[in-house]
């Protein structure tokens, strides 16, 4: 790495700029280990530094923006990035989402602090634990697969308006998958962690061993609509998809599941009978994330090019079962007389329940218990009908006990329709979603019960 501190690179970019602009440098360090069949497959330690510049320019008919994001070695690369962004802005077309750059505001960031970092050493204890677990698994004719990753991103953002912000985001995860040697039974767990100090490999292995023991009895079930317990990981994947769809403008234009018709949205409409609340909050303890906009578009396709640096506040999307907010940038908020709602990189769902998954199993007369969902894609965006697969353990519950593992299924169901059919919601807990954890790592979710989850066909995958 170059010796130039990231703060200096931001200042240098702003000094060079001839147009109103925002510049942000992200220092990223990451270490990871991956294993399969009780042995290492890949590992690595990576470092990068990225400079992003969004410049705005007055052009015929309005204001244009251009963004360039580039890995840079040091100060010698800054001018090239600024010039490229300014060129895109000057040669661009007027944007509908144009707004003045975010003005300076008060905050408590530690601008002068150096970037935080990580290294392969963070995974040292985990590696030792896995080495022991591999030997035990081999003796038990089981195979372990998985991935552990720790990353730290420190972002320094400066604007020609005088705004300076610094944010740190720590992201860690462990995914552990145990299979019998014949690959006929499989169990999975995931852990989201900020530093791996709270990860206990032996405890995780015990949990997987219990799950594999449930699978000693194999049962076949046909497709159909089953009472189903969705654990926190599974409901996280479904709610994240709904979050990524919550674009206010699309809803007003009648082209997503939150459309209310005639230019309206479903804000104010009841989506769930139970008092379910879904919110994001960059300050939520244990799920802390960057509290300002450091992206130019969000997963729902809202453009934030003119809003970089905007504070991300806690937002309640669903409150007591009623849709309360959708995602909108400042320009759209101004057009519609509402507030901008930038999405934070976390999601919390709570319904006031206290039961854990074991307690919910014990009160189930007959139903299915899922482990997680996989390969989730939208089939009908009008209803947000999603398809996907169950994975790594579907268990049949009878009279309050798990009686065996059943085949996997392909499901077709809508998370929005599902909200209205939930009959029980348990206590919310920190969880790692399965499908989207490459992109979305910070969730607190409850287990839920639905009477009729739609298992459309059987999957032969084991």
């Amino acid at each position, binding site marked *: *790495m170059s010796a130039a501190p990231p703060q200096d690179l931001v200042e240098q970019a702003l000094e060079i700029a001839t147009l109103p602009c925002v510049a942000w440098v992200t220092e990223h360090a*990451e270490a990871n*280990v991956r294993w*399969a069949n009780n*042995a*290492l*497959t890949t*590992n*690595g*330690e*990576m*470092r*990068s530094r990225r400079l992003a510049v969004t410049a705005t320019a007055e052009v015929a008919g309005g204001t244009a923006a*251009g*963004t*360039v*994001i*580039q*890995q*840079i*070695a040091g100060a010698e690369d800054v001018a090239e990035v600024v010039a490229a962004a300014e060129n*895109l802005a000057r*040669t661009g*077309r007027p944007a509908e*989402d144009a707004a003045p750059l975010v003005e300076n505001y008060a905050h408590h960031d530690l601008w002068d602090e150096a970037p935080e970092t990580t290294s*392969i050493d963070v*995974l040292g204890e985990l*590696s030792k634990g*896995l*080495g022991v677990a591999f030997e035990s698994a081999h003796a038990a004719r089981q*195979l372990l697969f998985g*991935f552990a990753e720790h990353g730290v991103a420190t972002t320094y953002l400066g604007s020609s308006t005088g705004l300076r912000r610094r944010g740190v985001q720590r992201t860690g995860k462990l*995914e552990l998958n145990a299979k019998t040697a014949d*690959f006929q039974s499989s169990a999975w767990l995931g852990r989201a962690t900020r530093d791996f100090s709270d990860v206990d490999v032996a405890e995780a292995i015990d949990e997987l061993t219990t799950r594999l023991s449930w699978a000693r009895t194999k049962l076949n079930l046909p497709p159909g609509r089953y009472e189903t317990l969705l654990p926190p990981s599974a409901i996280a994947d479904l709610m994240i998809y709904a979050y990524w769809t919550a674009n206010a403008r699309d809803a007003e*234009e*009648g*082209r997503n599941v939150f459309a209310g018709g005639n230019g309206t949205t479903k804000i104010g409409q009841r989506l769930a009978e139970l008092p379910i609340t879904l919110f994001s909050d960059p300050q939520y303890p244990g799920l802390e994330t960057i509290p300002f906009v450091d992206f130019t*578009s969000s997963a729902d396709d809202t453009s934030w*090019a003119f809003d970089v640096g905007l504070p991300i506040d806690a937002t309640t999307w669903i409150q007591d079962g009623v849709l309360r907010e959708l995602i909108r940038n400042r320009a759209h908020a101004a057009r519609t007389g509402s507030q901008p709602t930038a999405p934070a990189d976390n999601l919390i769902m709570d319904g006031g329940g206290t039961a854990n998954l074991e307690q919910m199993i014990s009160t189930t007369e007959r139903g299915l218990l899922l482990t997680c969902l996989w*390969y*989730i894609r939208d089939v009908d965006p*009008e*209803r947000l009908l999603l*398809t996907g*697969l169950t*994975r790594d353990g579907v268990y049949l519950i009878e009279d309050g006990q798990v009686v065996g593992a059943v085949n996997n299924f*392909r499901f*077709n*169901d*809508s998370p929005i*329709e*599902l909200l209205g059919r939930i009959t029980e919601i348990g206590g919310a807990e920190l969880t790692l979603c399965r499908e989207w954890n*490459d992109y979305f790592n910070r969730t607190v979710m409850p287990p839920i019960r639905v*009477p009729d989850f*739609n298992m*459309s*066909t059987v*999957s*032969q*995958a084991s």
Partner: protein
Amino acid sequence: MPQLDDRFLALPLGELSDAALSKAKELGCSHAEVRVERIRQAYRSFRDHALETTADGQVLGLSVRVVHNGVWGFASDITLSTDTAAHLAARAVATAKVSRPLTPASVELAEEDVYADASWVSAYEVDPFEVDEATKTGRILGLNEALLAAPGVTHATAMLGYVHENKYFANLAGTSTFQQRVRLQAQLTAVNVGKHGFATMRTTAPSTGRGWEYLTGTAWDFDAEVAEIPELLAAHVAAPSVEAGLYDLVIHPSNLFLTIHESIGHATELDRALGYEAAYAGTSFATFDQLGKLQYGSDVMNVTGDRLVDHGLATIGFDDEGVAQQRFDIISGGTLVGYQLNRQMAAENGFERSNGCAYGDSPGHIAMQRMPNVSLQPAPDGPSTTELISGVDKGIYIVGDKSWSIDMQRYNFQFTGQQFYKIDKGRLAGQLKDVAYQATTTDFWRSMEAVGNQDTYVLGGAFNCGKGQPGQIAPVSHGCPSALFRQVNVLNTQAEGGQS
């Protein structure tokens, strides 16, 4: 023909690799390789009359991968200095040491010839980065506005993406390669909003290993396709909902390429078959013990892998382990005969040589086995699409891809599409909607009665195939003809979902 970019060649590539490789050798590595890559990416999105997103990106960095005492180690950075290169070699050795407890067997690599100072440039004409911005945005916005001006189109969206990739590779054995390739994708979608709700119709132009010429008339007529979209959308909106059941399907390449990708491409990755991806992307029903035995499909099914077809998104001269481009058989006459390999898997599973499928999506990511262009071959004297349709009494003709999902062993899949036409007694009889087809991979491919001729063949593809942890994306193409499948399960998507 475009030449290798002088700005990339001006980087101290030889000095960097010398520093890293000599340090690796000094530290006792049996194998070491260096990649220096510069990847330029651009993305533009358009919404109705406006340009919504203008974002360019560049990744430039280097990585060092070693085998030290029989264990892999990897490290990467973005500072292109000889000190950093040597430091990375040491860090790669350090990661190998940390990983020693997890490595019960020493890494072995298949032999490969040495290619010293080899260079390769993909088959494109105009680098999109060299075209002025107003021309590019004006072209796409013009197409979007043509959609918007048509009756029945309430909204229109468009996207344009393009990539310019430079890659330098060197290893201890003496190989050094200099490569460059370009790829481009453009999509436009018309939206109708009405009392029925909303419906969309998207272009089917494939992502391609071409440059800006693709948008000016080479290989695709965007103006003609955009002119057809509004009428197709109107017919889709007015179409009756499909009755669920078994149907014969004639599938156009614009849809079938994605089915090939999911149910053949991923299923014949040897790392999946061996379990390396078991906790993430998944394994494969096509297990290694079935090589040469598994009846994957009908006898008209012939599938190849390659990294050499012109304009293929996975096409490249040398892979990220220094293996030269090849073409190889995966399925012959319906039988599984080959897998996608890298050097380690080749050596450890009895193959003399890798078939060149190693790829890392950036200098910060390790090279892993990734998909080559995997293509279904046409029949030399096969039928036209019209002739395929004429052989169907009750069926559906499917055009364009939309939604896709497949299980973690590549058995059970479900796909939708852009256009669904009812086939009644050998003729098309208007569009249907709410169609999804669902099948088990081997049932589906065994039901393939006929493949079309070369005239029906289209090279489709995608930029964003995901695999691996940390997650990597890879561009890949799939060529295929139109094909006929008998008695495939079709769902009515409106009937799916919850009831209470």
